[in-house]
């Protein structure tokens, strides 16, 4: 049992380190290291331009889309080498946010279902960051129950006409293309009437509006479709097979192993060490120490769970749904820590101005953002279902809509 690289891994790490040392945009490091929670603020630098420049540089040198096959712009490296890249890229990885969905979800779906000419046309430009992709799945009425979506696609000549609304689409406003799941048949069971497409996000009839989130930021969009035309050639998979295609996409969502989720523990420890209570430093308060110990156990447990998964990758295994515990643990914990941290600050815990609030208001930012962490990419409850059903082998839930044609499924308002 050790944390050492094997010979090949060590050689790969040395290569990565040396390239990063010569090429990484060091001027941005001060911003990236103190990046506030879930936003990319590069001061006077243009965040998207810098992100694209870094992406292009990596692509040209052979460090982009590491998992992809070489013919589509990737490097076909092993999963463990991807983890090593991620560890070494460190803070610079924050510049990759624009491309995560394209690389991790849209690209693999296109690769699995588009024709050869399309793959050659789209994938290398996605890999290089010249073209950005988004994923149009969630709808206002279908989140956890994604297959309940209602955006309609109807055949019209050789094309399809799209009408409906998507929501929580990251980056729709700066994306060039997107993958879109639609309902093509409401007379069959809900999973059977779906069809997947990709489309140009500049197509006429698309209306993109940023969502103002509960924490005041705007990282996501609503996308409205009003008679948007998509050529049939841009269909991914057969008509009615969209659910199967979507599973390909979602399967690729989980590969964030090796990356560590923020938990708020270091911030809390820093606060507890500096803050004075009537009885002395907060860190000496018995009630707080009990909680700190619990949080440390969870954060440390996550860290070494990640090490166990990395070992499995190193051995050539593919980790399964076990990997979903990361967000399930980190999400509620950061919320709990943020609340406790504001409590410790007493009245001044309410301040959000980084110039005045303790620890540059990072804990306040965590408080306001953490509800989203517990929902996005699978709610806490859906993740518990996944663990119970796919890890522990418990039976699936009994579904009230089983076997019903989609049009007959009861809905709320």
């Amino acid at each position, binding site marked *: *049992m*050790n*944390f*050492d*690289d*094997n010979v090949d*891994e060590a050689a790969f790490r040395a290569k990565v380190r040396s390239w990063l040392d010569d090429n990484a945009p060091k001027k941005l490091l001060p911003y990236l290291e103190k990046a506030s929670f879930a936003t990319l603020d590069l001061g006077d630098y243009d965040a998207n331009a810098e992100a694209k420049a870094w992406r292009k540089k990596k692509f040209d040198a052979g460090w982009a889309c590491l998992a992809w096959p070489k013919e589509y712009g990737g490097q076909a490296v092993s999963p*463990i080498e991807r983890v090593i890249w991620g560890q070494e890229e460190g803070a610079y990885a924050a510049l990759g946010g624009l491309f995560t969905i394209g690389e991790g979800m849209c690209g693999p779906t296109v690769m699995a279902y588009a024709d050869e000419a399309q793959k050659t046309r789209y994938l290398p430009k996605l890999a290089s960051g010249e073209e950005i992709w988004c994923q149009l799945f969630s709808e206002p009425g279908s989140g956890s129950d994604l297959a309940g979506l209602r955006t309609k696609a109807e055949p019209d000549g050789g094309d399809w006409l799209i009408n409906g609304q998507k929501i929580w689409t990251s980056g729709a406003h700066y994306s060039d293309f997107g993958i879109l799941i639609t309902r093509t048949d409401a007379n069959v069971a809900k999973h059977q009437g779906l069809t997947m497409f990709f489309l140009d996000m500049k197509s006429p009839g698309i209306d993109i509006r940023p969502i103002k989130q509960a924490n005041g930021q705007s990282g996501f969009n609503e996308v409205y479709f009003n008679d948007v035309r998509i050529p049939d050639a841009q269909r991914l998979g057969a008509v009615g097979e969209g659910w199967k295609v979507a599973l390909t996409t979602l399967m690729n969502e989980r590969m964030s192993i090796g990356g560590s989720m923020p938990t708020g523990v270091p911030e809390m*420890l820093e606060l507890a*060490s500096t803050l004075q209570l009537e009885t002395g430093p907060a*860190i000496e308060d*018995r009630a707080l*120490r*009990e909680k*700190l*110990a*619990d949080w*440390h*156990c*969870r954060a*440390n*447990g*996550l*860290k*070494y*769970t990640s*090490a*166990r998964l*990395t*070992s*499995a990758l*190193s*051995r050539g295994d593919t980790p399964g749904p*076990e990997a979903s*515990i990361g967000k*399930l*643990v980190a999400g509620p914990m950061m919320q709990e820590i943020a609340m406790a941290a504001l409590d410790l600050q007493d009245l001044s815990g309410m301040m959000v101005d980084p110039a005045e609030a303790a620890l540059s208001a990072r804990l306040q930012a965590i408080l306001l953002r953490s509800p989203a962490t517990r929902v996005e990419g699978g709610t806490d*409850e859906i*993740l*518990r*279902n996944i*663990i*119970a*059903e796919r*890890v*522990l*082998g*418990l*039976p*699936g*839930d*009994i579904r009230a809509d089983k076997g019903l044609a989609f049009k007959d499924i009861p809905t709320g308002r």
Partner: protein
Amino acid sequence: MNFEFSEDQVLLKEMVRKVLDDQCSSREVRTVLEGESPHDSALWSQLCALGLPGTAVDPAYGGAGAGYLELCVVAEELGRALAPVPFSSSVFLAVEAIKLAASESQRAEWLPDLASGAKLGTLAAWEQVGPLRPASVTMRVDGGLLTGQKMLVADGDTADQVIVLANDEMGSSLYHVQLAHKGVSRTTAATIDPSRNFATLRFTSVPAQRLGSGGNGWQLLNELLDRAAVLTAFEQIGGAQAALDMATNYAQERFAFGRQIGSFQAIKHMLADMYVDLELARSNCYYGAWALSTGAAELPLAAATCRVSATQAYQHCAKNNIQTHGGMGFTWEFDCHLHYRRSNLLALTLGGPAVWKDKLVSRLVTNNAA
């Protein structure tokens, strides 16, 4: 990266599991729980025949010469099977204390018998209700003779030797005492888990040999407890896994309202949370095992972390195993209470969760400052 147990270690684990599957069903556990015998002698003999007590003892002293990682996988299986044997007292406490603090000649004298299992050892530290602290230790050694009383000594009824924390002219020290002496008397203690033996030991002018130069007993004790904490944490996650498995199986077999109870989200989510706690504890335990086996500087923090985490996971899995079983879980007949008892016993054996949480935070602060 290779943050996992080796093939040989996994083979050892499977071998121990097979032996315990054959010879340590809940019937054997219940025989000790309900009977007069302090442990299962037949099972203990079998484990000794396999050389398991000497797993992490140098061959020079009659051990197998394997390491702590091997001992960890053995501990996990013993915990899983609720093995009613004096393994943890003799191996995690007595053997480790001697390895930690005894002189060369003392090791040569005591370790071979403990490694073979021919003799049993244990640790005696607590004297009063409440957390162990320097002021709560009144036992004294004068002129090489020990006098006083220690409570809740693990396997105190059967131990042949005991490591004792006592005061002397140097301050506090660890002593080794042979219990076959007329000045020793023992009283069995009634505890929440009678499948493991605990006894009060009284000493009147009993000869005692000091470990090391003396005066550092408190520090040695804490180092010993750190080692034992890692090993016990493996025992705890073994038990937690068994309790989770029981609950998962029952949720699939038991029907209510015309369906398997495991199809209700209330049950599913409870079991998922047990799984998550156990996985975190397992990862913390692996970290503790790594720190123990490499003598890493972060062992004190790693030990406290896996101790707290594994204690919580076992208590969580054991109590919700009963909850999953409903009324049947509260019968004497069902095995749920065996894990409920053991989880709450192991939570206290090396000092309780509150004490370990406090140690954890002190060590976290120290490590962060370094």
